[in-house]
């Protein structure tokens, strides 16, 4: 049986570059102790995987963008990118 089409769309949310990310800094500080040298910076973000009814087309990406700017990201402090999975 063929199921209805479902688009899987990823939304990546990152703090804007100018905003301090103490969690990323804490991770970066730990890395040398674990033997990972040469990693001057880490920024931590959020990844959302959405399942949307319908095909994985531009309209699906547009719906994901709308969801991202309404709820998933706060445009005051964050930026986001969407792509199909």
């Amino acid at each position, binding site marked *: 049986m063929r199921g209805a089409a479902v688009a899987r769309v990823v939304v990546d949310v990152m703090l804007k570059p100018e905003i*301090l990310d*103490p969690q990323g800094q*804490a991770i970066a500080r730990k890395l040398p102790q674990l033997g990972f040298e040469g990693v001057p910076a880490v920024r931590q973000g959020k990844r959302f995987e959405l399942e949307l009814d319908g095909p994985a087309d531009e309209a699906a990406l547009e719906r994901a963008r709308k969801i991202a700017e309404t709820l998933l990201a706060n445009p005051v*402090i964050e930026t986001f990118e969407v792509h199909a999975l």
Partner: protein
Amino acid sequence: MDAARVGVITFPGSLDDRDAARAVRLAGAEPVSLWHAEHDLQGVDAVVLPGGFSYGDYLRAGAIARFAPIMTEVIAAARDGLPVLGICNGFQVLCESHLLPGALLPNAGLHFVCRDQRLRLDNTSTAWTGEYRSGQELVIPIKNADGRYVADADTIDELETSGRIVARYLDVNPNGSQNDIAGITNEAGNVVGLMPHPEHAVESLTGPSADGLGFFTSIVKRLVNA
């Protein structure tokens, strides 16, 4: 004359709604419990958004509470001049609602901070601060994980030059807030967001001072004179 009626909203995860209601009563007003899932402000004269962890603070602090049914009415009424005070989580909800500029992020030190905090009141012309003297120093508890106020440089500049920074941290900056900001107001002065908890400093028996009571007596006096 009837007492002023001040609404206190309870979201799932609110913690300080009862203390806020008690502070309202001690200030001489009638607290009115408002429920997040309703679209009814019950004709209150002012609203307090209390502290806590509304909707678990999932996603971002205040991000989901901002879309609670009652926030439709709060946002519309605030834009029409209804006095609104957001304390801690309430401040976060007001920023997420864009009633106040900027945002509140995890503390720079990554720890939950709970301490009696010295503050300076820098704006006494808001609906919630008229009973204080400009420059007055207060000691009020602070307890937050996401209290780091941030805004872009233009917004900070605008807040500074227009005197919209209501309170600043003294001695130590407990969460890395820009410009030691502990509280701000909107352009009209009816909406105030405050990270410290004045409702926990209304009686010497249970608080470090009674310095917080002035926020509540200020609104009562404002409403009586309105």
